[in-house]
């Protein structure tokens, strides 16, 4: 009977390394296979080692204060549920537990004040109950025989990337491929030689998938022979139809879909930061370019010439049927003209697009007092009545923004007081009358021609007199208002202007920001270029100075060269003269010597 081996014990460095390599090869599911590489450890222990220590995602740093606090808090919330706590803290369950206990120990120690050693430190002779969570022990210099053997075996096994079966398969595949190619080559050569061979090696065993369907089950013949049926591919497929297809989409759903689309569109627009003005008026995204036609090959002048030359030859042009296009265009033009005429007949307020009141509140005097009124008063009443009619008519036919009255109200009023349409002649006549009247008044008041300055002065004075009373919501004359009212009005005005100001300032800021983005690129470019230009100018200045200096030097040298040559030549000449003298003297001396010796 063999010795009973209990696996376990402290993890060695070699064991850790083998385990890591094995996990890399076999993954994290085949622990018994991995454990077969380490004969001192069981599968469970290997797994524990990996998940408690070796996994690279395990944090092995010191516990930070925040982590400690979190741990204590969680331990109170979920007592003994270390797995849950560990996921929250981001360390392993064993680490959490151990840290918790150390913390408790420390607290206890502080309370009791005893300075004994750590109770969880191993005493000599004790065995570590969970060695998986401890750092590996370094390898001894001289390893055991069996340990070395284990290491080499593990190395061999881990280095082997293919199993026996995979190797055999690969070899067989290669052989098969070679055989096929050889056969192919042989057949090709035979064919080239004119010998036709048929593929005789028909498969005896197995299924020829080109010929038959494996495990085919023919459908059972039904009650009705369908082979003669003709199917119209475009006939409605009633089998697939649902109630929904017949009814069409429900209105609510359609609405919802459209809304969603709209929302999506708005969102996109917002994301793209499109200015609101683009949202409101639907301008075409792409501006159409001008139509460019090629130059006519025959100019108008040429045609004119041809016509004048060939006048006698009469070209008979048959009267053509008017083109449908022309008819349409003429019709359209007619319509447009009519509209314009119609518009001319409208009141001046509409024609000039002046602001119109949103509410029609002109008090007409009661018709009972007719008899008491003077003629001019009566006329005034008539004018007022006409005015109201026109206001209603205008409001009905070209809507006033923010109108307080509905179209039906306008219609009702006009039904009761029919709006007369005058002919153009009548209008002309009326205008003439008015003009005459104006001239008479002008003359009577001796206005004459008023210059623009005078007019604007009077206008401004009048405008100054117009005062808005915010408390009463109406306009009045400034001279009639009390001081308090005037103050109030001014304050209101200032307030309004402030609001305007705020809005405008925002707009301006936005514009500025946009412009900054738009133009900053150009600005930096211009700045750089200017800098470069300045540097170049500096260099040019330097070069100019240099050039003039060198030119000056050249001039100097031109002067210097002949002088130097002259000086040297002088020297040489002097030396030559001296040589002559010396030679002479030598000759004389020689003569003397000869004479003396003689």
């Amino acid at each position, binding site marked *: 009977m063999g010795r009973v081996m209990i696996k376990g014990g402290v993890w060695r460095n070699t064991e850790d390394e083998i385990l890591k390599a094995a996990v890399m090869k076999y993954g994290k599911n085949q622990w018994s296979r991995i454990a077969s590489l380490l004969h001192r450890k069981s599968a469970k222990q290997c797994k524990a080692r990996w998940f408690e220590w070796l996994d690279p995602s395990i944090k092995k740093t010191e516990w930070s204060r925040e982590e400690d606090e979190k741990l204590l808090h969680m331990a109170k919330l979920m007592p003994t549920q270390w797995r849950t706590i560990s996921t929250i803290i981001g360390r392993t369950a064993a680490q959490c537990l151990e840290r918790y206990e150390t913390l408790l120990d420390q607290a206890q120690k502080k309370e009791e004040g005893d300075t004994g050693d750590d109770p969880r430190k191993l005493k000599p002779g004790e065995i570590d109950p969970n060695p998986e969570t401890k750092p590996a022990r370094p390898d001894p210099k001289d390893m055991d025989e069996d340990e070395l053997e284990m290491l080499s075996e593990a190395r061999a096994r881990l280095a082997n990337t293919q199993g026996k079966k995979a190797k055999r398969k690969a070899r067989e595949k290669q052989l098969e491929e070679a055989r096929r190619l050889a056969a192919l080559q042989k057949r090709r050569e035979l064919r080239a030689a004119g010998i036709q061979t048929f593929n005789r090696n028909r498969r005896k065993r197995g299924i020829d998938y080109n010929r038959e369907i494996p495990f085919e089950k023919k459908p059972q013949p039904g009650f009705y022979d369908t082979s003669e049926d003709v199917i119209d591919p475009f006939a409605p497929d009633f089998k697939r139809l649902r109630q929904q297809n017949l009814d069409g989409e429900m209105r609510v759903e359609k609405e919802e879909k459209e809304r969603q689309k709209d929302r999506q569109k708005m969102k996109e627009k917002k994301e793209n930061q499109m200015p609101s003005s683009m949202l409101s008026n639907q301008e075409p995204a792409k501006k159409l370019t001008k139509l460019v036609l090629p130059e006519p090959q025959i100019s108008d002048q040429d045609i004119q010439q041809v016509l004048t030359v060939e006048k006698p030859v009469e070209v008979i042009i048959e009267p053509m049927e008017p083109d449908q296009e022309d008819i349409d265009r003429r019709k359209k033009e007619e319509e447009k003209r009519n509209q314009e005429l119609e518009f001319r007949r409208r009141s001046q307020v509409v024609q000039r697009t002046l602001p119109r009141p949103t509410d029609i509140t002109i008090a007409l005097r009661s018709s009972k007092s007719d008899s008491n009124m003077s003629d001019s008063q009566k006329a005034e009443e008539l004018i007022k009545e006409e005015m109201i009619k026109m206001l209603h008519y205008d409001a009905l036919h070209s809507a006033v923004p923010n109108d307080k009255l509905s179209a039906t109200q306008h219609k009702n009023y006009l039904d009761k007081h029919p709006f007369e349409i005058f002919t153009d002649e009548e209008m002309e006549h009326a205008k003439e009358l008015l003009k005459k009247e104006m001239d008479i008044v002008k003359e009577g008041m001796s206005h004459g021609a008023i210059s623009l300055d005078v007019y604007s002065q009077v206008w401004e004075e009048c405008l100054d007199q117009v005062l808005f009373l915010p408390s009463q919501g109406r306009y009045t004359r400034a001279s009639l208002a009390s001081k308090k009212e005037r103050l109030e009005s*001014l304050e209101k*005005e200032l307030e309004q202007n402030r609001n305007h100001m705020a809005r405008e300032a925002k707009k301006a800021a936005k514009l500025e920001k946009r412009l900054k983005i738009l133009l900053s690129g150009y600005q930096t470019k211009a700045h750089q270029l200017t800098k470069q*230009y300045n540097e170049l100018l500096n*260099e040019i200045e330097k*070069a100019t100075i240099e050039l003039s200096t060198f030119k000056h030097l*050249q001039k100097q040298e031109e002067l*210097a060269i002949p002088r*130097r040559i002259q000086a*040297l030549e002088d020297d040489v000449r002097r030396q030559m003269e001296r040589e002559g003298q010396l030679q002479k003297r*030598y000759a004389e001396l020689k003569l003397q010597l000869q004479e003396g010796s003689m």
Partner: protein
Amino acid sequence: MADEVVVDALPYIDQGYEEQGVREAALLMVEEETRRFRPTKNYLEHLPPLKLNAFETDAMRHEFERIQQRLPMELLSMKRYELPAPPHGRMTDIAAWTECVDNSYAQLQHQLTRINNLELLSDYGCEIWKNEVQMIMQYVNEAQTSLQNLRKQIQEVNWARKSVQMQVGDKLKELEAKWVALVSKNYEIEQACAQLQQDVRDSHRLAS
């Protein structure tokens, strides 16, 4: 002064400028010259006298005075841009209120002008900046070509100097060599003469 000293250096053929101490000596001479030099003549005589305050305006004079007194610059008052209400003491003064409202209108108009300007800028800014950049680029190109021209001219001048000096240099060297040869020859002749004289004198003595 320049007429008195003739500088006849020919740097392309003369040697000895590279030796130690020559450059320092030259620099020393230059320094000494600058120390000694006194401009005796007003060389700007043909120009009108300087008008230092030709472009000075009242505002500038004021500012210069302020800078001289080392006072900090007055901060721009932004008060009126906030459209303030009249001061506390004059809350019931219609004139003050009118003033404030008028100010607000003025500021609004100013703001409007600003927006108009900004809109103009947003319409034409890109083009204008593009033109500006192009213009500066053109300037830069012109400057570069002129700089290159200048460099070329400098080189040509130096080439001309060098070629002339090299030609002259040969002649000078030849002359110099001739001179040296002559001097040494003369020396030899002189010595020979001296020897002869001695001999003559000896023979005279012998004869006598």
